[in-house]
């Protein structure tokens, strides 16, 4: 721990270059947020098939199309974030398999191709049996597609805040949170009250677990690592990042948890829908602040 010696040494940088600005900004936040919804919807569709296949009827096509749209938003922002987007094909022709970026790009491409195939099968051929079989495989594929961003964050050795397996768990929870929220909104009258409450429970539990992990890192993270302590300093106290951090925690997790509890008591779909909207909106803020703060720290 060197920062304790700062007062004694009074060490001050007197001549240096400025710190680089944030490299991975809101494009990458959009990437993570849209991917969570895209894969999360697939997870929820699979759960619905297992729990109550009768309610799949009106949701096979619409849910998959919404997932497909969000996966394409994710791919679009991934591409837009590249400084040389026209060289994206290098990932497929010069793949470097130790990189989570490469693995993720391949997995996500296969995922979207499979989604396209399923849309064709259900939309044009109305073949629900094949669709349901493929749903199992795409759900399996959705797991690495959800997780690979955590792999990238883990490989970002310079950013101590992003640890494995914490980030992997947070990615899965982001998918179950946003996926359940999205299917509640998409389901509308096609889902029974019981099924809606089931997805509400998934949303609430995902919010609770994610919130517990963030709070654990917020409170205990600084005790083990000097760099984490310095990074978390940005979200402690006042300041814009602290405000953004708490807005995210309230909107994504705390309020949806309270609203879901209220919806269970009052059996209100409107309150459940509000919880779902807040969770989806809040997730963007939560992901953004966690992406930004490690980049504020000088590395050299």
């Amino acid at each position, binding site marked *: 721990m060197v920062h304790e010696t700062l007062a004694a040494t009074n060490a001050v*940088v007197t001549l240096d270059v400025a710190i680089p600005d944030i490299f991975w900004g809101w494009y990458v936040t959009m990437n993570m947020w849209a991917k969570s919804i895209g894969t999360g919807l697939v997870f929820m569709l699979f759960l619905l098939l297992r729990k109550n296949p009768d309610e799949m009827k009106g949701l096979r096509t619409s849910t998959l199309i919404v997932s497909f749209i969000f996966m394409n938003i994710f791919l679009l922002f991934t591409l837009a974030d590249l400084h040389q987007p026209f060289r994206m094909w290098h990932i497929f022709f010069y793949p470097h398999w130790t990189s989570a970026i*490469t693995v993720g790009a391949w997995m996500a491409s296969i995922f979207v191709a499979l989604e396209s195939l399923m849309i064709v099968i259900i939309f044009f051929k109305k073949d629900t049996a094949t669709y349901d079989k493929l749903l199992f495989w795409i759900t399996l594929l959705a797991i690495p597609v959800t997780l690979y961003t955590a792999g990238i964050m883990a490989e970002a050795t310079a950013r101590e805040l992003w640890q494995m397996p914490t980030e992997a768990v947070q990615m899965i929870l982001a998918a179950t949170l946003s996926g359940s929220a999205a299917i509640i909104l998409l389901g509308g009258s096609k889902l029974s009250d019981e099924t809606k409450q089931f997805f509400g429970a998934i949303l609430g539990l995902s919010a609770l677990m994610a919130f517990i992990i963030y709070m654990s890192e917020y409170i205990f993270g600084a005790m083990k690592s000097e760099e984490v302590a310095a990074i978390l300093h940005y979200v402690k106290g006042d300041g814009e990042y602290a405000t953004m951090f708490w807005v995210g925690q309230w909107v994504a997790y705390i309020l949806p948890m309270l609203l879901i509890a209220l919806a269970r008591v009052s059996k209100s779909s409107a309150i459940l829908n509000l919880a779902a909207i807040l969770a989806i909106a809040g997730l963007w803020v939560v992901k953004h602040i966690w992406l930004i703060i490690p980049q504020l720290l000088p*590395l050299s």
Partner: protein
Amino acid sequence: MQLGFLVDLHLCMGCKGCEIACKVENEVPLSTWRLRVKYVDVGTYPETKRTFTPLRCNHCENAPCERICPVSALHYLENGIVNIDKERCIGCAGCVMACPYGAIYIDPETQTADKCTYCAHRIASSMMPACVVACPVEANIFGDLDDPTSNISRYIQDNRDVQVRKPEKGTNPHHYYVGASQVNLNPLASKREKGYSLFNNITKLPLGGHH
């Protein structure tokens, strides 16, 4: 062969000759740096001291930038240099995020990642890196770490206070410092106040990118 760098901070006088030589040799664009010398002042007046630390790519044995690069644009040369193929780079900035030493930047002209290559092109022609040649006090010692008779190996053998930056990251840097303190090696050991940097009105360097 395993090429490495050692900077004897007892000798460095902060002239920035290495910095300029690097800029010129490698045509490094404005607002980006492959090598820079950081000044940190220590103590309280009148008991003050100014320290100088040249900072460049560490050419790690276990380089996080090489591992995260999705297209092998960052790769090892046989002599241990971590080199970059700018034609292959897709500009994902994964390497920028992975390097614990902040040694990689996005070149605003080519929109690709770039960094110190130990002047790999000069070494291929049996020349020393530009910064080594420019140093007036021979504070930069460059050579083969696998050769026990090389200058750098003998320097490491003869000095007990040989250190690397952030050893806890497990990157095994091939860039060493003699005579360094925490203030030189750890960016968290010094305060960084606005108004005391080279660019008084600039607190954040531009990304050199499109957003």
